[in-house]
């Protein structure tokens, strides 16, 4: 027996997981060094979806770069839009009217629910449960239909505008959204019945990918991954933008920092998002939806037809862009994945001198080796799912 063990040669196996692996949520490539089933070393390779969005932003005016932010994290494009316009508004020194702020908060929370629903569906599907995936898409479809009613597009919405929102919401939209809001908690209960206490799910996630609070902060993690480790940090609460300072909501936090706690945090966030949505609808004030800042917003279209001054404004703003104060600015907003930050360097012209995007997915992808090394190869899938990365945002 001993002779066989001596002569039996074992060595590390290097495999490449991705970029076309169905469980990597995009084109993420992981090179895994395996000792049997144990991961010895994990190296993520990103960049397969690089489109140069930061550079493209430098060649477009502040207004025209808005659709680029749709394509960062394409399953929660509304949140990216809201983050982008908030940063640009802060740079311009203008403020959106109250009603526009409430509408933005509303649509951002809808985006959060739809993104978390996809995360739940795919994460659970990766681990082996097919049913919640189908249920999740049923609810997402409602939100997508509402987005279509709102702005004419389902996925890449480009709905908020610098200084407000594109158009006012309709009564039908508001009523249907309220119906959804009242109905959603029961749907959440359905997901929880299927997943939360399930023994297979628990054995696959409890104690997997543990990261302590101190380490999570040091790695620069944000969003549910940070909160799952027990750090009470949310941009919406500690640096409120839009109407979040008028909303009542809690921040769910985990304790252990494993996959299961991150799952609980995200589920809690969905319930909180629903709570914010309900308050938004009930407190929605009347008033304008675009800021009265003629130097920074496109003029009203009916006036463009009648009035020469407005027509000149239209031409100047679209071809040259607005005249922007010089300087630099960073603004972070809470998107479903974490903290999405936009950093602008302005040289006084209508186009940014530099546009930098702080993408949460990129930072979360960098923590993968820390989570995976020492674990089993099957847990790599659980770890990819739990940090909820979208490669469109990671590679930009």
């Amino acid at each position, binding site marked *: 027996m001993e002779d066989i063990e001596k002569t039996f040669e074992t060595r590390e196996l290097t495999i490449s997981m991705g970029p076309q692996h169905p469980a990597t949520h995009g084109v993420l490539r992981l090179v895994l060094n395996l000792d049997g089933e144990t991961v010895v070393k994990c190296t993520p390779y990103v960049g397969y979806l690089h489109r140069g969005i930061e550079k493209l932003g430098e060649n477009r005016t502040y207004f*025209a770069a808005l659709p680029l932010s749709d394509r960062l994290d394409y399953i929660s494009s509304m949140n990216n839009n809201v983050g982008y316009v908030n940063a640009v508004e802060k740079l311009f020194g203008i403020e959106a009217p109250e*009603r526009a702020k409430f509408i933005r908060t509303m649509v951002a929370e809808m985006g959060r629910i739809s993104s978390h629903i996809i995360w739940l569906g795919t994460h659970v599907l990766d681990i082996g449960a097919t*049913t919640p995936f189908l249920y999740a898409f049923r609810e997402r479809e409602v939100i997508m239909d509402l987005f279509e009613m709102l702005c004419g597009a389902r996925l890449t919405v480009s709905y908020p505008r610098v200084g407000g929102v*594109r*158009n006012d919401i309709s009564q039908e939209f508001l009523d249907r959204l309220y119906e959804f809001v009242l109905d959603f908690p029961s749907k959440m209960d359905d997901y929880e019945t299927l997943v939360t206490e*399930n023994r297979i799910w628990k054995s696959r996630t409890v104690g997997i990918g543990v990261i302590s609070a101190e380490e999570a902060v040091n790695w620069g993690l944000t969003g549910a991954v940070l909160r799952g480790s027990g750090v009470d940090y949310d941009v919406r609460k500690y640096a409120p933008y839009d109407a979040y300072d008028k909303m009542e909501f809690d921040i769910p936090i985990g304790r252990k920092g494993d996959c299961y706690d991150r799952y609980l945090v995200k589920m809690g966030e969905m319930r909180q998002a629903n709570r914010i949505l309900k308050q938004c609808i009930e407190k*929605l004030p009347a008033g304008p939806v675009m800021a009265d800042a003629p130097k920074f917003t496109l*003029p009203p279209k009916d006036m463009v037809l009648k009035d020469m001054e407005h027509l000149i404004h239209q031409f100047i703003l679209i071809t040259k862009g607005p005249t922007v104060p010089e300087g630099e600015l960073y603004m972070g907003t809470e998107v479903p994945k974490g903290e999405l930050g936009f950093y602008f360097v302005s040289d006084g012209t209508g186009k940014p001198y530099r546009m930098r995007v702080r993408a949460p997915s990129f930072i979360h992808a960098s923590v993968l080796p820390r989570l995976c090394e020492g674990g089993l190869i099957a847990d790599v899938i659980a770890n990819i799912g739990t940090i909820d990365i979208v490669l469109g945002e990671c590679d930009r």
Partner: protein
Amino acid sequence: MTAGKLIRTIFFIEILQGMALTLRTMFTPAVTRRYPKVKRPVQPGFRGLHALAKNEEGKMKCVGCGLCGAYCPSQCIHIYTTEGEDHNKVVDRYEIEVLRCVYCGFCVEACPFGAISLSEHYEYSGYSRKEFYMTKEKLLANWDKYFTGKKGERYYKDFWRPKSEDFHGYEGQAMFKGIKNEK
């Protein structure tokens, strides 16, 4: 391990609860559609295939100012103009690379004449890239095809942004009006 937990573990309670839910869902109406046969109704204002608007006389509204092309984030609109007989601008070619378009609708917002519009048509396919290079003639034909009758007139009234009322608020805005069907 408490007694309740032990019972739940032995009798697979959480699995049975999940299965009961699945069984219940089997008897609810299906939410999916049989796509090519049953089509999803498109909401008004959907951003689909482009069309160039015609005025009442049936002529192209576009004057070739080039504002849509300047605003377009994907830079897929190409306009070529020449000087006409009485020194007016003549639009010789107006071309949209549909495959590059991102359907943001910014061209509709930029146009000061209401000349370009996005129709509700979204099912188009072809065998070559050439079919998706929309020339002026194709775009004008799209207008006849997808904006028949009152639809074309209404389009600009409904979907021209921003409107004056967006800047000062108006009566009849959508508001929360209490719970309708309270159980």
